């Protein structure tokens, strides 16, 4: 259910960003989703397949999903820590931190068009 609204949001965003003529040549959508984004790549693919069925104009446009790990950067010692088991604690100095530098993203980071 949630993934369906994400797909609608992606397509609405692209339609606002690019002209109709360009969207007709849409070839690939590259999205980056973090572990914390609550987006499950497999379900997002399914939701996109369903979207394509009802929007034949986008049949040739592929969705590519990259998922990223969760990382924090300590405000005290600047050390970057990969967060495991959702313990938001710097592995270098032990201070708690919620300064997430990777893993929260939901980005359309690249769009491809046919020539």
């Amino acid at each position, binding site marked *: 259910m949630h993934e369906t609204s994400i797909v609608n949001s992606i397509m609405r965003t692209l339609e606002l960003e690019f002209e109709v003529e360009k969207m007709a040549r849409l070839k690939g959508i590259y999205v980056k989703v973090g572990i914390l984004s609550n987006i499950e790549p497999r379900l997002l693919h399914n939701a996109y397949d369903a979207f394509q069925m009802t929007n034949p104009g986008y049949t040739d446009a592929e969705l590519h999903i990259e998922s990223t790990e969760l990382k924090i950067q300590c405000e005290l010692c600047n050390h970057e820590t990969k967060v495991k088991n959702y313990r938001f604690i710097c592995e270098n100095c032990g201070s708690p931190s919620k300064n997430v530098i990777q893993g929260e993203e939901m*980005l359309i980071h690249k769009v491809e068009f046919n020539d």
Partner: protein
Amino acid sequence: MSTIEKSNKAARGTAQCENTNINLLKANDFVADIIRKEMTKSNTLLINVTSSAGSGKTTLMQKTAERLKDKLTMAVMVGDLETERDAARIRETGIQALQIVTGGICHLEAQMIHQVLDQFDLPSIDLLFIENVGNLVCPSSFDLGEDYRVTLMATTEGDDKPRKYPKMFLTSEMMLVSKADLLPHLPFSVDNVVKDAREVNHEIEVIRVSSVTEEGIDEWCNWLLAKVEDKQMAEVNA
């Protein structure tokens, strides 16, 4: 390590690329900012209340309304998949309540809030609650333009929830441990739940509340009154 889900169709033709970095929720966040500006203009404190289904959000809204309705003007919008039951319950306490029926959608989006804002006389409202759809997952991703996000964590849910649903607790400023009156009957440790929540978000504030015995309701209402005052002072200073 990042994993890329590869397409199984053969590549063909040439392609032009555009690097974008557009946030998927750009449309939502744009509307959330509009809501935030409206709230600043009308001096209204906006609180987004989230939790699992059945953790006592509506009952807490009723209690809060009873306590605060003589001190300030409060209103509630409440999201559910179906029925107007929650809004009706809140209206019984004599405050304005508006039901947002999402028709199957598992969270509220900024657009849904913005659409109904004109139903309220915002300048006369000091405190506006959004009672979100009962769900610890999806609502965490949608900014509704709120000043604070408050998450209820009922003692009947088990004390291991914060790290199972980390995004919600990471993005909340306050965790209310609700149904505290049931603690003697449950294998629920407040210390454990606070520890779990603070491993995710070391800044999260915690209050134990019970809408039945009214434990913690004073503290909760005083927190709200202080935040309402802060917001109105900030506006005076600006």
